C-alpha cells in the first residue's frame, strides 16, 4: 500500500461509486497481498487472516461514498486494516487463540504460491513460523507497528498516521518490539 496514487485512481474510485464491480476487483487485486500479510501477522492464522482480509475490503466497499478523493487509496485502506485488525484481536477469544497458536501449523499453511524447491519451502516455512511465534508474544499495538514497518517498509510517521497514534509512541513500540524480537529470534539471526 504505497502512499503514491495509482495512475488511474480517480477513475477507479469514480467507477466503484457507480457500482462497477470490476473496478473494485482491481483495487482488491492491487492491495490484497499487503492486507493479507498484515492480517496474518496479526492473527497468526491463515483462516482468520482471510476472514479479516474480507472484512477489511467489505468495510472499504461499504464506505467508499465517504472516501475523501483528495487522499490516496493506500493509506485509507491501511487505516481500515489497522482498525479491523486491532478490533478483531480485542474481540476474539484469547484462550482459544493461545491454544491454536501453540499447535504446529500444517506445512501448506506457510507455503507461498509459486515456490518450487521443497527444502527451501520447508526452511521458509520454519522461519516464518518462528517469526510468527515471536510476533504473537508482542502486545497488539507493537505487533501491528512492526508488521506495518516490514510488510510495507513504512516510515514511523506513516505508521503513526495509520494507527492514529503519536509518532513518539510508535517509535517506542517499534523499539520495544524489535528488542523483543531480537531476543526471541536470537537463534535465527
Amino acid at each position, binding site marked *: 500500500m504505497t502512499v503514491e496514487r495509482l495512475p488511474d485512481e480517480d477513475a477507479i474510485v469514480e467507477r466503484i461509486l457507480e*457500482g462497477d*464491480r470490476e473496478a*473494485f*476487483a482491481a483495487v*482488491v*487485486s492491487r492491495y*490484497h*497481498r*499487503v492486507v*493479507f*500479510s498484515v492480517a*496474518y*501477522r496479526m492473527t497468526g492464522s*491463515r483462516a482468520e*487472516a*482471510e*476472514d479479516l*482480509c*474480507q472484512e477489511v*475490503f*467489505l468495510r472499504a*466497499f*461499504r464506505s467508499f461514498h465517504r472516501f475523501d478523493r483528495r487522499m490516496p487509496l493506500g493509506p485509507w485502506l491501511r487505516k481500515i486494516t489497522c482498525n479491523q485488525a486491532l478490533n478483531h484481536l480485542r474481540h476474539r477469544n484469547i484462550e482459544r487463540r493461545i491454544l491454536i497458536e501453540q499447535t504446529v501449523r500444517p506445512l501448506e499453511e506457510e507455503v*507461498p*504460491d*509459486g515456490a518450487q524447491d521443497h527444502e527451501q519451502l520447508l526452511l*521458509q516455512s520454519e*522461519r*516464518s513460523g518462528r*517469526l510468527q511465534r515471536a510476533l504473537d508474544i508482542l502486545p497488539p499495538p507493537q505487533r501491528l507497528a*512492526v*508488521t506495518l*514497518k*516490514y*510488510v510495507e*517498509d513504512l*516510515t*514511523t510517521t506513516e505508521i503513526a498516521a495509520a494507527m492514529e497514534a503519536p509518532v513518539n509512541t510508535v*517509535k517506542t513500540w*517499534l*523499539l520495544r518490539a*524489535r528488542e523483543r*524480537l*531480537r531476543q526471541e*529470534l536470537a537463534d*535465527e*539471526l
Partner: protein
Amino acid sequence: MSCEQALPLLYDLADGDIERDNAVWLALHLAACRDCADELAELRKTEAFLSSEMAVAPPSGLARRIAQSAELAQRSRRRDSLWLGLAALVAAACLIVLLAPVSGPPAALTVLWEQGASAAHFFATLPSSGAQALIERAPGLTEKAADFLPGGVSKKLTSILVAMIAVQLLGSVWLLTFKNSRQRAGNGS
C-alpha cells in the same frame, strides 16, 4: 554519549530517521564503543530477517472471493433498500389513513336518518364530544354508527392496516434473520 543514550539512536539510524546532530554524536560513539557497534550489526541482521520474512503470500483465489463477497453485499444492500423503501411507503400510507379525520360517511348518516331527519342534522353539526354523549344517550344508534364518529376510523379498516403492518414487520424480521444466518454460514465456510 553513553551506551544508554546511543541505543534508541541505533534504531533511528537503522530506520533512516536520525537527526544530523545525533548522527554525528552516534558516529563518534560507535567509533569508540565496540558493544554498540556490535549492537548495530545485530540490529541490521534483525532488520534484514524481518524484511524478508514478514510478508506472507495470500491463498490463491482470495482476491476473487473478496470481489464476489462484495458483489453479494451490494446485491443484498439493494434488496434491503428496496424492502425498506416499501416498508416506509406502507408505514406512511398507514399513518396518513390513521391520522386523517374521517368525515361522516353515508352509511352512518343513513342510520341516523332512520332515527329522524332533525336528529341526523343535529348529530352531524355537533362537535365529537357532543356526538359521543348523544350516542350514549340514544338507544337507537347502532355500533356501526359509532364506528364513524368524527375523527375516528372504521374498525375493519384499522384491522386491515394492523394486519398489513404486521406482515411488513414479519417480513423484515424474516429478511434480517435469513441474512444473518447466511452471513454466519459465509463466515464459517
